[in-house]
């Protein structure tokens, strides 16, 4: 057997660039990018079910401090978003609290208490208070099939608005997951 010197980044790009999003290599971008017909994020799909929360796994290889959480509102804004960070057991580390959507087709950022994350795997989660037709829209990624999203490790929870502590993870059942991000800098 030939052992190799690590040539694959051990500090994945999301950490090095100061922003960790759904599509970062240290989140599920590692698998989304090779499986996406087009690497675009849509803002045109309603949140599937009111109060449902979605949780995206991401890796932290070195200590980081999260200063803001952000998402991108779609073409309809009429709900409250709660976004946060959880450990693998579902314990809440920090969240924005229920926050009224503001700005159509616009980036929305929320300052949070500066929160240090030690190396490990975490989930960034988001829930929206309204779903179905006319619901608030969040830029999202539509997974080709649910089975693939499950293979990415994406989780969900019903009745998760505001985000509870702890959350109870279940394999995702929707071909949908939100685009959200964590800022390690004071300005996004």
């Amino acid at each position: 057997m030939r052992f190799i010197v690590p040539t694959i980044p051990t500090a994945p790009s999301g950490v090095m660039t100061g922003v960790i999003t759904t599509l970062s290599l240290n989140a599920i971008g590692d698998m989304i990018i090779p499986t996406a017909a087009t690497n675009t994020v849509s803002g045109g799909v309603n949140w599937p079910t009111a109060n449902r929360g979605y949780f995206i796994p991401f890796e932290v290889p070195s200590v980081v401090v999260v200063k803001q959480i952000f998402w991108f509102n779609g073409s309809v804004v009429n709900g409250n978003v709660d976004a946060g960070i959880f450990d693998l057991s579902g314990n809440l580390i920090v969240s924005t609290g229920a926050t009224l959507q503001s700005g159509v087709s616009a980036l929305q950022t929320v300052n949070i208490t500066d929160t240090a994350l030690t190396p490990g795997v975490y989930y960034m989660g988001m829930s929206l208070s309204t779903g179905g037709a006319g619901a608030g829209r969040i830029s999202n990624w539509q997974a080709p099939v649910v089975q693939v999203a499950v293979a990415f490790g994406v989780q969900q929870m019903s009745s998760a608005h505001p985000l509870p502590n702890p959350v109870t993870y279940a394999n995702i059942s929707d071909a949908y997951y939100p685009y959200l991000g964590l800022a390690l800098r004071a300005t996004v």
Partner: protein
Amino acid sequence: MRHDPYPIWAPLFLTSISGRFTPGFAFSAMGTPGLIGGASAWPANNRAIYVPFALPFPYPVKRAWWAIGTSSGSLDLGIFDAETGVKLYSTGATAASGTNVNQYVTVDWLLQPGEYYFGLSCTTTGATVQRNAQLTTTTMRQLGYLQEASANPLPGTMTGAAIASSYLPLFGVTRTTTGY
């Protein structure tokens, strides 16, 4: 069994399409991102498909899995040393089970850093598996994918041949024992 040391931030899943560990980003950069939009029939009875991957850190393998569509026959998932072709682990022939689910087999093994092939074989074309069918065989050959006939159960030493089907199955391992 607890496996130390391994990086606590190691990803939960290593898959046959992971961009950082397989040629996933390479084929994306070649203009053929591989939409996985449905399961299709395994390309030939008892064929194994080998996916190269490189692991820069120890990884505690707790489950092996494949994305079954329609269950039929048996599947075998293995990991092979890339230099020697020797099989280091396999699930053994396992009856396909479920419909449109990820089927898991329990493992408890620490995979050391190195260069490997994932292997997945299936006894029958009656089974369907989620797959990328957009890569051409020419692209797959350039990126190091291989195949082997009459390879279920997976052999003790793989003998890779040029890939002949546009078919990259979705499968992999996890470092979690349950759930996600």
